[in-house]
């Protein structure tokens, strides 16, 4: 659905995007991760046809968004970072106006469906100027769906919201996934990505440093470190025996808990056998996993 090759963008002398490559397939919920100023919004405004790239090809829904296109020809839905509506219009009028902007007739049934879906049916007759940030965000998500696009771009849909508002937005994105839509959304909240995405791209200073399926990234980043807790503190000679195991590199002890750095997570079997042979009571036995946060920080620090 989206295939970006060699996308570059300058603002004066400042290069905001450097040779960006992206690939999003139908049905993906793509998490576009990057810290503030990494270039997420810049990328999205190019892919939605609203801003011009310096160079590159950006196939979006079969059309090249890096070339001059009319945003509405791409058949996409777009939620800007800070969606703006006419403050003096009501939520319902806003959706009708956007539906009619595409040349279609007002469709009250559809408008009601969207209002209900985003939980604004009660506030449909209120002026948008009085809406909270979360309500505006939900209206924006409804607005992005007004022309039934298969592909949606959501720019930081949950970032500026309180936990409750974030939960609402994540629920809506899950609904979109269940409807079979493809969603490209940017964020710097990594736990959101872990909750709903199946693919991730990490953008650092305008450059894609990693792009893969979420489970692949997580798999790659399983550290060969075991945290093992026993019911009584281990004696020194036992710790020494563990250190002597072939696959073990280093052991650190913390009272009843030890931390074992191994060559690979294949070592788990051997450790397990060791503990059962010695008849030691193991309370917990964990392979440590890096979460996305660690992976992200690691990628950022490499630069």
């Amino acid at each position: 659905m989206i295939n970006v090759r060699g996308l570059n963008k300058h603002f004066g002398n400042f290069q905001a995007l450097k040779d960006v490559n992206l690939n999003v397939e139908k049905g993906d919920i793509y998490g576009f991760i990057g810290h503030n100023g990494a270039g997420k919004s810049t990328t999205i405004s190019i892919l939605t046809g609203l801003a011009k790239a310096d160079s590159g090809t950006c196939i979006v829904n079969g059309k090249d968004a890096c070339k001059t296109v009319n945003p509405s020809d791409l058949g996409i839905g777009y939620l800007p970072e800070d969606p703006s509506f006419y403050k003096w219009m009501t939520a319902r009028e806003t959706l009708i106006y956007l539906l009619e902007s595409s040349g279609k007739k007002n469709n009250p049934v559809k408008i009601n469906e969207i209002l209900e879906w985003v939980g604004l049916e009660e506030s449909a007759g209120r002026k948008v100027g009085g809406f909270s940030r979360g309500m505006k965000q939900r209206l924006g998500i409804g607005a992005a769906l007004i022309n039934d696009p298969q592909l949606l771009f959501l720019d930081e849909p949950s970032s500026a919201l309180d936990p409750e508002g974030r939960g609402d937005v994540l629920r809506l994105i899950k609904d979109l996934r269940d409807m079979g839509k493809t969603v490209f959304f940017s964020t710097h909240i990594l736990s959101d990505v872990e909750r709903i995405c199946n693919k991730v791209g990490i953008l650092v200073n305008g450059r894609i440093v990693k792009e893969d399926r979420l489970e692949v990234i997580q798999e790659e980043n399983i550290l060969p470190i075991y945290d093992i807790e026993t019911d009584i503190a281990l004696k020194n000679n036992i710790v020494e025996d563990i250190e002597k195991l072939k696959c073990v590199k280093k052991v650190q002890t913390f009272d009843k808990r030890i931390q074992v750095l191994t060559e690979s997570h294949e070592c788990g079997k051997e450790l397990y056998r060791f503990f059962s042979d010695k008849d030691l009571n193991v309370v917990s036995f964990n392979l440590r996993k890096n979460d996305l946060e660690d992976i992200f920080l690691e990628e950022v620090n490499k630069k």
Partner: protein
Amino acid sequence: MSMTSTLKKDFMDGIRNYKFLIIFAGFMFFALLTPIMNKLVLPGLLKSQFPGMDQETMNSMLVTTQIGNIRGYLGDIFEIGMIIVSFTFCGAIAMEIREYTLILPVCSGKRYSEIILSKMIVFGLSLILVTTVSILSNYLYSGILFGFEIDGVIPVLKAGILQGLYMVFILSVIVFLGTLMRNQIIVGLLTLIFAYVSRLLGNLLDINGFTPAGLLIEAEKLENGSAAGLYITTAITIGLIVVFVAASILKLRKTDLTRR
């Protein structure tokens, strides 16, 4: 469907943000104030200041005719009405770009030409309507106070429409400046400076007949029929409006609406 919805939206904007009300009230204020000042306030003022003044001297200092009143009103509008128009509509495009309200409609399929044309149609027609209704009110009120002296209502209607057309030209300047800069206060100020300076230059170089301000001079004549010069002035004004509208559409098409 899309154009109808744009027109409806701009009309709603005019109503809900009191744009129509402000220009109507502003123009009507001067339309009704001028005759009152000339009939009641100023003579009383003169009498109290110069008790011994004879009637003839006093009349020479006062406006005592309907035509004088209408001309006075037209002059007031150029000076103060222009300020009202500039600052009522200065956000027409500037604010839409500054507040990013065009992004979603454009993504939905709204054409840039529709956005510009709709503003020109809705606000332009409201300006012509307001100038016409106001000058008619001024004509009636000053007629009641000073006696009617104009041959029929046609010259008055003509003056109102010419003044309205001049305001539509000003609107096209506002719209065009709005595509160049986002600060609507600066748009309003530049529009005023443009209007005053171009009229001044027109006077100095004696070329008002070839500038939109010529419409105002023609309106003040309050004459029936139309001189050949009026056609030229009108054609030039309409031509300039078309140029500004086209330039606005082209500029808006090239504008990055998402720029922070």
